[in-house]
């Protein structure tokens, strides 16, 4: 069974992970191998089978609309990688 060619660069872009050329090649091979095994699923007759939505048949788990205590701002911002006053700070966002 041939290894399927994944466009690793494109997928890494979607996943926001910078990869070296070496990683692109290495992961490409390893994931291709995995996919070759995964493609065995095509052997199963899943036409009339529903996809598992939930392992346990649970429905309508919701909560009441009442306030619960949250986190103190200082606790939250204390571990922010970068903060400015009361805000989280990030490098400029390039509009896409």
């Amino acid at each position, binding site marked *: 069974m041939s290894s399927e060619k994944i466009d690793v660069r494109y997928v890494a872009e979607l996943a926001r992970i910078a990869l070296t050329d070496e990683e692109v090649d290495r992961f490409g091979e390893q994931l291709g191998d995995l996919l070759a095994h995964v493609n065995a699923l095509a052997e199963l007759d899943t036409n009339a089978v529903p996809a598992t939505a939930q392992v346990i048949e649970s429905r309508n788990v*919701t909560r009441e609309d009442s306030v619960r205590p949250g986190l103190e701002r200082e606790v939250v911002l204390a571990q922010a990688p970068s903060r400015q006053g009361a*805000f989280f700070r990030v490098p400029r966002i390039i509009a896409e």
Partner: protein
Amino acid sequence: MSAREKYVPVIGIECHVELKTATKMFCGCPNEFGGEPNTKVCPVCLGMPGALPVPNAAAIEHMIAAGLAFGADIPAFSKFDRKNYFYPDMPKDYQISQYDMPLTQGGEVRYWLDDGTIKSCRLTRIHLEEDTGKSTHAGSGDGRIAGSAYSLIDFNRAGVPLMECVSEPEIHSAQDAVAYLEALRRTLLALGVSDVKMEEGSLRCDANVSVRLADAKELGTKTEIKNMNSFRSVGRAIESEIERQIALLESGGRVVQETRGWDEANGVSVSMRSKEEAHDYRYFPDPDLVPLEISREDVERIRGTLGELPWQRYERYTAEYGIGPKPATQLLDNLSLARYFDRIVAISANPQQSANFVLGDLSRLANENGIAIADSKVSPEHLAELIALVEAKTINSKIAKELLARMWEGAGSPKALVEGEGLAQTSDPAAIEGFVDDVLAANPGVVADYRAGKTNVGGFLVGQVMKASRGKADPALVNALLARKLQG
């Protein structure tokens, strides 16, 4: 034919409405406008490791109510899906939304124009999702992303329940678009499911605009217009875009599919993106949440809470009561006022007069005194009495005005006042004739002027008769008698 007339604008409106609940969609943080940044947060809405979402039951009820109000179907099953993309104001870098099994399906918004034309626009979908945090961009001088040096994020808004409402592209003018929005807004306000304030961000909208030749079957290329901050803005922006596209096409150009940001200050839209980058959102059912099963009992129970919807009220006022579009709209824009009005009509059976009083003198008094009509000392029952007195010509409009002012101060039943103080107007022709004769005799110069052709001085003479009768003369009779005598 003008260039404009050759084309049909095709507009679709996409709204995001923040639902009015006490807490956020998936956690117990308060859902309120304003407040210090990053103070209404918890592990869940900050997307911290290990945190899990649990849906807000009230938000689901609000959605179902809104769906029913727009005539949508409420399916038996619904679920949440993850919409995956990276953005700094997205705490989990995915948004919990609904993809293929939203809480409502179909529906339409009935709206009306100033001239009373009733239209409707179908809805493509209404679904429930969570709002993102808010980012402010620094260093660019105008607060925009382009040219900014860095951005600051506040997550207070992250996780607020959001209703996304997408219309079919069935709107064909900027004016219609605004009317659609107003109808949408009125309905949601009447249901109490949102504050729907554009200035607070509880209603946000984008427009998709294209134009096609009147006889063309295919739609033109559409652009998305964003950043409109008021209804007026929406109208201006859409109009501007229609004109821009037509001018472009007329001069041989092509409309590029893009997103344009509206600049209200300068009255123009600016291209935000030069190419459409298709996002692969990789939607899949959120494994942290279980499906929603909505029983028919629940649907009917919620349907029972809807009450009369604004468009139904509008049609009742205009079609049944014969009230004009503008006054009808004015009445139903304020639910407590509309209810007050309904109570008067129930007793007086005179919607026209009821509307006149409510929107005229009563509204004036209310504005002057800063008190809502429904909170005033004028009860609907007493106002109905006043109307009856005017209808029966027991009092004239001048006396009615005076009485109303006194009722506003708490004087109570106008009937009692009229009887007690003898305020009934004089309709006795003999008595009025007496007044008229006296006034004519006392003002020979004016009479001469009138007979010489200066008919505008007739008003002065009417005024004198009213004065002589201490305001109680029936104005209609006064006019008739004066006219007869002046003709001589």
